[in-house]
């Protein structure tokens, strides 16, 4: 899997938009960019995945520039319940059965 770099932690107030950027300079042509969210004492939850440009779902948006060497997860109007760890992963699945290595992620703290 391509190596990713993301901030260790971020703070935000309720109602603000939060953008978490992940760099993946060695992303390969066939790689997808995937984001997960993890609450304490729970397993990670798949949030969003993209290959290029912009992807949006009911939870978040994912912005991917043309060179694909970085990506930004955007959480609109966060609430206290968005406090969690967010993981950025890059890879193509290939013959590894889509095995993932999560790393430490970005710990987001949302306060009133």
């Amino acid at each position, binding site marked *: 899997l391509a190596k990713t770099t993301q901030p260790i932690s971020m703070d935000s107030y309720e109602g603000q938009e939060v953008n978490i950027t992940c760099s993946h300079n060695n992303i390969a042509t066939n790689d*997808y960019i*995937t984001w997960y969210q*993890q609450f304490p*004492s*729970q*397993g*990670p*939850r*798949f949030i969003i*995945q993209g290959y290029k440009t912009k992807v949006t779902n009911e939870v978040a948006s994912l912005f991917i520039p043309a060179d694909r060497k970085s990506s930004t997860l955007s959480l609109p109007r966060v609430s206290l319940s968005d406090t969690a760890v967010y*993981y950025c*992963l890059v*890879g*193509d*699945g290939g013959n*590894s*059965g*889509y*095995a*993932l*290595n*999560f*790393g*430490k*992620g970005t710990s987001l703290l949302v306060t009133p």
Partner: protein
Amino acid sequence: SQTIHQWPATLVQPVGSPLSLECTVEGTSNPNLYWYRQAAGRGLQLLFYSVGIGQISSEVPQNLSASRPQDRQFILSSKKLLLSDSGFYLCAWSSLRTAPYEQYFGPGTRLTVT
């Protein structure tokens, strides 16, 4: 719908004792299965994954082993636990019907080795 079960939810074991954690998936066939561990203050580490019955790939050399005796059953074992084996163990599944890297996680087992 698909469901993933793990048990036990919590476990306290002495050093040197054996370990067996079980994971089962319902509602899907021929899933890819994974074992992860999250130690205190650390990220999520992939331990094993399996793309079919009897097919196990190990990501990290350690005193743990995994087996897949049935299509939707994944077992994590150890003959002798170490203190460093303490952590939060998570089982996950994915399939060809899901997006690449879209995995679904179980509730986890909190293991404390004393």
